[in-house]
C-alpha cells in the first residue's frame, strides 16, 4: 500500500487511540531493558534483605562471643568457623550477622538522605518555577552558592558542625548536598512549561493557579527529578561511607552500617582484608544497582527513546 498522507494520519490516530501515556510506555521499555532488570534485581534483593534482616541474621549486631574474642590477637582475627560463616569482626562479633543487619542501616541512610534532599529540593524548585521573578532569582542564588562548593566538601563542612557526629548528622549532610541539584532540575523544567500551550489552556479555562502548578506543571516536570533521585541513592550511600572514613560517621562502635564498617576495617586490612572487602562489595553492588536503575529510567523516560 502506498503511504499516503491520509494513511499516515490514520496510523498516527490509531497510535494515540491505544492511549499509552509516556509513563506506561516507559514501563514497557523498562521491562525490555536488560540494564533495568539487572538494576531492579540488585535493588530488590537489597531491599528484601534489609526488610528481613533481623530474621535472617542469626545473632545481634552488638553481641560479642567469648569463643571469637579468645581468638583475637593484634595480628589475628578469627576467620569462618562453625556457627560464624564469615568469622569474627575486630571486636569478636559475628561478622555475617553484622553484614546482614547493616543492609538496613545503609538503606536507611541512603533513603532518608535522598528523601530529605528531595523534599527541600522540590519545595524550592516548585516555588522558584511557579513564581519566577524575584522569588526565582533569590532561591536560585541560594542554590548557586550550595552548588559552588564541591559536593563532598559541602557534606564535610555540614557534618563537621556536629560536636558529636552521628548517623543523623551524616544523613543531614548528605541530604543538603542533594537539595540544590533537585531544585535546579525541577525549576528548569517548570520554567520551560510556564509558556507552554497546556498551561495557557489551563489558565484560559480558569483553572486555579495552585492547581495549574501542582496538577499540570509538576507532574510534567518531575520525571528528571525522579531519575536524579534514583541516582542520588547511589551517591548518598557512597558519600556517607566517605564521611565515615573521614571520622564524621557515627561514633557508636555497635552500629552496623556498610560505610562505617568499611571505614573502620581499613585499620585491619593487613590482618583480615575480608572485613573491608565484604562491606565494600556490598556498597559497590548497591550503588551499581541504583545507578543502573536510574540510567535505565532516564532512557525509558526520554521521549527520543534512542540511546
Amino acid at each position, binding site marked *: 500500500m502506498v503511504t499516503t498522507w491520509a494513511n499516515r494520519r490514520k496510523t498516527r490516530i490509531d497510535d494515540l487511540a491505544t492511549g499509552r501515556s509516556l509513563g506506561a510506555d516507559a514501563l514497557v521499555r523498562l521491562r525490555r531493558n536488560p540494564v533495568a532488570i539487572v538494576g531492579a534485581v540488585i535493588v530488590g534483593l537489597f531491599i528484601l534483605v534489609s526488610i528481613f534482616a533481623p530474621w535472617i541474621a542469626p545473632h545481634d549486631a552488638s553481641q560479642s562471643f567469648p569463643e571469637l574474642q579468645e581468638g583475637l590477637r593484634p595480628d589475628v582475627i578469627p576467620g569462618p568457623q562453625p556457627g560464624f560463616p564469615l568469622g569474627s569482626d575486630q571486636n569478636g562479633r559475628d561478622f555475617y550477622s553484622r553484614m546482614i543487619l547493616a543492609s538496613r542501616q545503609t538503606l536507611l541512610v541512603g533513603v532518608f538522605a535522598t528523601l530529605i534532599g528531595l523534599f527541600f529540593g522540590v519545595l524550592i524548585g516548585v516555588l522558584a518555577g511557579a513564581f519566577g521573578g524575584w522569588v526565582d532569582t533569590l532561591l536560585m*542564588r*541560594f542554590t*548557586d*552558592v550550595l552548588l*559552588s*562548593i*564541591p*559536593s*563532598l*566538601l*559541602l557534606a*564535610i*563542612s555540614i557534618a*563537621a*558542625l*556536629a*560536636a558529636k557526629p552521628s548517623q543523623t548528622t551524616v544523613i543531614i549532610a548528605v541530604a543538603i548536598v542533594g537539595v540544590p541539584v533537585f531544585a535546579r532540575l525541577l525549576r528548569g523544567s517548570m520554567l520551560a512549561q510556564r509558556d507552554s500551550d497546556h498551561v495557557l489552556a489551563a489558565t484560559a479555562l480558569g483553572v486555579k493557579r495552585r492547581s495549574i502548578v501542582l496538577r499540570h506543571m509538576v507532574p510534567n516536570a518531575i520525571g528528571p527529578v525522579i531519575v536524579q533521585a534514583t541516582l542520588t541513592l*547511589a551517591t548518598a550511600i*557512597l558519600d556517607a*561511607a*566517605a564521611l565515615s*572514613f*573521614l*571520622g*564524621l560517621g557515627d561514633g557508636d562502635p555497635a552500629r552496623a552500617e556498610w*560505610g562505617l564498617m*568499611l*571505614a573502620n576495617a*581499613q585499620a585491619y*586490612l*593487613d590482618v583480615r*582484608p575480608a572485613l*573491608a572487602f565484604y562491606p*565494600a562489595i556490598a*556498597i*559497590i*553492588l548497591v*550503588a*551499581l544497582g541504583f*545507578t*543502573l536503575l536510574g*540510567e535505565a529510567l532516564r532512557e525509558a523516560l526520554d521521549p527520543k527513546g*534512542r*540511546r
Partner: protein
Amino acid sequence: MLRFVVRRLLQIVPTLFVLSLLLFAWLRLLPGGPAAALLGDKATPEKIAELNRVLGLDQPIPLQYFRYLGRSLTGDFGNSLISGDPVIDEIGRALPATLELAVAALLIAVVLGIPLGYVAARYRGRPLDTTTVIGTLVGVAVPVFFLGFLLKQWFAVDLGWFPPSGRQSVSIDATDVTGLAVFDGLLTREFDASWDALRHLVLPAIALATIPLAVITRITRASVLDVLGSDFVRTANSKGLAPGTVRGRHVLRNALLPVSTTIGLQTGLLLGGAVLTEKVFVWGGIGTLIAQGIERRDYPRLQAIVLLGAGVYVLVNLLVDLSYALIDPRVRLR
C-alpha cells in the same frame, strides 16, 4: 568576549558574597558557639567569655560580619588552631602537592577517557563497548578511599612496585623550587628526584582519577553516539570525505562540547576526592589539611578551604564556558 568575561566575573561576586554570609553563619551555628567548640573539654564559662573577647565575638553581629568580610578580602582568614600559623600560609604550602595530584589525575582521566569513550561509541554494542560501559558504571560505584587502599595494598605493600605513601623518599635531597616535586626535579636537573616523585604520584593519581575517568568516558561515548547519528556526519561521509577528516573535524569536535563541561565539573569535584585520596596515601596537600582540620575541629582552616574551593570551582566553570568558544565557533560569547 571580554565583556562576557567581565560580566561572568561580576556574576560571581554575589555568589561569593552569599557564600561568605553562609560561612559566617556556619561558625555561629556551632553548638555553644565557636568559643565552646574551640575550647572543647577545657571549656568553662570564664574561659569562653575570655576567648569571645579575644576573638571579638562579644561585638554586635553585623560589626563582626563586616570585620570578617574585610579580613577575608585582604587574604586574612585567621590562624589555624592546630599549627597557630595563618591559614592562608598553610594553604599556600599545601597547594602545590594537591595541584600536582589533581593535574596528574585529570591528565589520566582526559587522556584515557576521551579516546576510550570515542572507541566505545564507534564499536557500539560490541564486547569492547559493553566492557567499557560496565567499567564506567562500576568505576563510579567504588568508594574512592577503598580503591586507594586496594592499590596501596597490592601495588605498594604486596608487590612493592610503588612507594606506599608520601610524595618523595626522605633519602632524596631534592631542591624545592615551586613545590611541585616532579616539575622541580626537571627544573633543577635532579632527574632522580623527579623520577622518585613520579613513582610516588602514580597510585594516588590513579585512585583519584577513577571517577572522572569513568564519567568522562561515559559522556564522550554518549556525545559521540549523538553526533554519529546526525545528518551532517552522513552528508560528510556520503560526499566522500576521508574517514579521518570526518572523525577529527566533524565528529570529535562536535562531540567535545558536553565533554568539556564534564571536565570542568569533575575538576571542581577533584578537591573532594583529594581529601580521601590524600588521607590514604599521607599526601600532605590541601586534602590532608581538611582531614586534620576535621579531626581537631579546626574551623578557621575549614572555613578558608571551603571558600577557596568554591572560588576555584566557580573559576574553572568560567574557563569551561570560555573554552566553548574555542571548540565551537558557532558559540558567540556575549
